[in-house]
């Protein structure tokens, strides 16, 4: 079997412990991230069956979904949230797993801290009980989300039973226009292939646009692979990847670093490697986009209008559109730029890294604008370290001076498990990844967009083309 291989095949093949006749593989898991929401029942299961954690040192835990983003010195007020976070701490203590607790400066969203710590490495298999684990694929790691039973399985055995997925390559070629970010690229991809487009596949993102993205941008793209139905997304590791990882606390050091890099250089897909499916996008066709509906595939360029279900020939799709528009409180034909918003959320594992905050702050610097009257805008950094770095660079001042709230790190209003939620009917410009009904709070209405576009919306109180804002 020495034909040309894809990046995915190289990682997969090097992690098969055993293959069954039906093709299901027992796959070795190198790294396991754990958070408070999907782990309590897994630890409970271990305890009930008297099992231990096989490799505690290959496991890292952090509370992120439930933590408050305001002053933490007095703990968590909401009882159920507090119990989950305390349960995680107790479980980590009992099973010998390292935990970054709520007061640790390294605490943050699980998918932000993995790369930040150098816990995420190319060529590895990484799992976490969270669907956005796909984020780590930006490093050329096979990273995917798992359910709680699988969390328990990995804790106990350091392996998982998996069926080999199919492969898909998405090429984005050309040059991105002014004001177009990684978020627009991935939203455009999802708009093209749909939320089930990647089902059963691992997507490898390639082409000049992807190569040109920073590590942060690649993470944004891989993060939303799950929104395209794929469990994992991958980008081939390159010099940018190595430069990002060098010197990180858990990245290899010295001779081991050299040895690792030599191996990592062999990972990119071989010329002539075959994919089950290929999709190609031209960067010139990608504009800053926003979502209008309740699925991440409901995208439209900011210059466009709310679509009209009557123009949809498929009956089921039409019904779905009507339902989405009713939930979103939108009229067909309304120019997207006329839609007023109540809240702006700059955060989440999609867009709360240092580069996202820099891009957002840059818009504020260039326009000198202030958050519009009646709009509540908040920045929730992805981790304590992102927050510290942003403060060192003076970004917090820029945000605060413009009227943004500057919060403590966590998932926050991405899913509203902590007190940060939309009220029924409130409309939010959000840099997160899901616009499902009720995602950001019951009855809340979410428009997904990029960090610069979120700032533009905050300044005008409406969804706004950031390019036009900068030009004026």
């Amino acid at each position, binding site marked *: 079997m020495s034909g040309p291989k894809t990046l995915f095949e190289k990682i997969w093949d090097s992690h098969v*412990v*055993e293959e*069954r006749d*039906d093709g*299901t593989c*027992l796959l*070795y898991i*190198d790294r396991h991230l754990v958070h408070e*929401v*999907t782990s*309590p*029942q897994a630890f*409970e299961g271990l305890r009930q*069956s008297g099992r231990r954690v096989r490799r505690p040192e290959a496991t890292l835990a952090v509370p992120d*979904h439930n933590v408050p983003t305001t002053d933490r010195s007095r703990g968590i007020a909401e009882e159920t949230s507090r*119990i*989950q976070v305390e*349960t995680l701490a107790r479980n980590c203590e009992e099973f010998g797993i390292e935990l970054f607790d709520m007061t640790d400066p390294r605490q943050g969203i699980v998918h932000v801290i993995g790369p930040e710590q150098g816990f995420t*490495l190319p*060529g*590895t298999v990484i799992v976490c*009980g*969270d*669907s956005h684990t796909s984020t780590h694929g930006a490093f050329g790691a096979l990273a995917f*989300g*798992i*359910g*709680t*039973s*699988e969390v*328990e*399985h990995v804790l*106990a*055995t*350091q*392996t998982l*039973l998996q069926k080999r997925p199919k492969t898909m390559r998405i090429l984005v070629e050309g040059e991105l226009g002014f004001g177009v970010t990684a978020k627009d690229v991935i939203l455009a991809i999802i708009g093209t292939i749909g*939320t*089930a487009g990647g*089902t059963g596949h691992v997507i490898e993102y390639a082409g000049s646009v992807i190569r040109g993205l920073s590590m942060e941008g690649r993470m944004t793209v891989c993060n939303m692979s799950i929104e395209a*139905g794929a*469990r994992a997304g991958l980008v081939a590791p390159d010099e940018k990847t190595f430069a990002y990882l060098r010197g990180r*606390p858990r990245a*290899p050091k010295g001779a*081991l*670093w050299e*040895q*690792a890099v030599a*191996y990592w250089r062999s990972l990119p897909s071989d010329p002539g490697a075959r994919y089950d499916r290929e999709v190609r996008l031209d960067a010139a066709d990608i504009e800053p986009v926003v979502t209008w509906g309740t*699925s991440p595939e409901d995208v439209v360029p900011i210059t466009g209008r709310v679509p009209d279900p009557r123009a949809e020939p498929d009956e*089921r799709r039409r019904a*779905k559109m009507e339902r989405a528009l009713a939930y979103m409180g939108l009229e067909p034909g309304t120019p997207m730029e006329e839609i007023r918003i109540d809240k702006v959320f700059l955060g989440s594992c999609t867009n709360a890294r240092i580069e996202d905050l820099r891009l957002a702050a840059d818009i504020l610097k260039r326009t000198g604008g202030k958050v519009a009257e009646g709009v509540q805008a908040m920045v929730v950094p992805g981790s304590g370290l992102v927050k510290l770095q942003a403060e060192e660079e003076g970004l917090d001042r820029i945000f605060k001076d413009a009227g943004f709230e500057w919060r403590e790190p966590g998932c926050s209003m991405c899913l*509203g*498990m902590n007190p940060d939620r939309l009220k*029924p009917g409130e409309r939010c410009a959000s840099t997160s990844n899901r616009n*499902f*009904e*009720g*995602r950001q709070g*019951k009855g809340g209405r979410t428009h997904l967009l990029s960090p610069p576009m979120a700032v533009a919306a905050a300044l005008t109180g409406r969804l706004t083309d950031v390019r036009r804002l900068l030009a004026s």
Partner: protein
Amino acid sequence: MQPFTTLTGIAAPLPLVNVDTDQIIPAKWLKTIRRTGLGAGLFESLRFREDGSENPDFVLNREPYRRAKILIVGENFGCGSSREHAPWALLDFGIRCIIAPSFADIFHNNCFKNGILPIVLPREQVELLMKEAENAAEPVFTVDLESQLIHRPSGNEPIAFEIEPFRRHCLLNGLDDIGLTLEKLAAIEAFEQRQRLTMPWLWAQGR
């Protein structure tokens, strides 16, 4: 895990596509540290109105579907998050089998791990079953995993379904994945020994 052999019960039709995990169980229910009790929040936003009262139009609030053990749904059921709270909520409500033209990957996996049987059938067949579930006086179906057949209330020809042999074996016997894997401990240890040599940076102490 409870074995799954034959299931006889009411089937409820839910002709929605792309039902996501947030719809199956909203985020506020994720704060539990147990597996049980989530049935009360199943399809909360569809089942209950703003004021907390039941929405009489929703299928699971209508007789006889309140007692449904089988759910017949549209494409891409269970998309969204990896949270296992979705199958737990279904299970706690009493659902042990879901029939759909397609499922989201992780959800599909999670069903098997919790003793729920997800059956994939061509869209036409799903629609046929949905109609029967809708119209039959007593919409009782029997799902026989042993013979891989769905017996219908109309008494018409049972519908056959496919399932991976290993999954079927585990469901039939209520086998727990972890126990099965731990039987392979020697292979896991051998793999680890190999990886220590080929990728020592993944095993460096002191991190």
